[in-house]
């Protein structure tokens, strides 16, 4: 079945350093979504990418969708302690309507 993999599983950075998490799907995705889950909280939708090669920015966050629409990345510039949390990517199944497959997430910790 469809698999969505994220790396790294954990990332520890010093405040001010950059951070990148990568998401790879075993199948082509019609779109990819990114969520952030703060410790003890629930996932919150960040963004959706639809077009091949699409790049979107939200302040210090840059999201990219690969040309083949099988991979994506989230890059945070100059991390802050408020960036702490787990970042999930999710892709809808091309064959299984309504089902989204989530990656296992990358947990970011930021040392002040």
């Amino acid at each position, binding site marked *: 079945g469809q698999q969505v993999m994220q790396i790294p599983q954990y990332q520890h950075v010093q405040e001010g350093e950059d951070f990148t998490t990568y998401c790879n799907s075993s199948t082509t995705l*019609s*779109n990819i*979504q990114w*969520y952030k889950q703060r410790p003890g*909280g*629930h*996932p*919150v*939708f960040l963004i*959706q990418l*639809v077009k091949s090669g699409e790049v979107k920015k939200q302040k210090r966050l840059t999201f990219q969708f690969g040309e083949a629409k099988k991979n994506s990345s989230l890059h945070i510039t100059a991390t802050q302690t408020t960036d702490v949390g787990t970042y*999930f990517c*999710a892709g*809808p199944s091309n064959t*299984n*309507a*309504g*089902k*989204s*497959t*989530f*990656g*296992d*997430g990358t947990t970011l910790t930021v040392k002040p």
Partner: protein
Amino acid sequence: EAGVTQSPTHLIKTRGQQATLRCSPISGHTSVYWYQQALGLGLQFLLWYDEGEERNRGNFPPRFSGRQFPNYSSELNVNALELEDSALYLCASSDWTGADTEAFFGQGTRLTVV
């Protein structure tokens, strides 16, 4: 506008009992999704309801079931609870009309099986 609401916030059950979790979607959303998030693990898709019908289910045993009511709220029932069912159960809703719609999550129900 109210977001997705789930109840109860916490639930403690003993092994073998049944648990019922509830979810109210955002007004106007017809689709409800249930996910299980075990400690330290990612989100595992459980069930998808849309317009009152079960549209899809993940790789969970039949003792995980649910339903969606005419007002689009939903229940998740877990029968014959096992210790490994302890997890955060998240409900999300969307106005799904295709594959390209984001989901909004509730705060979750923390189920502990002892």
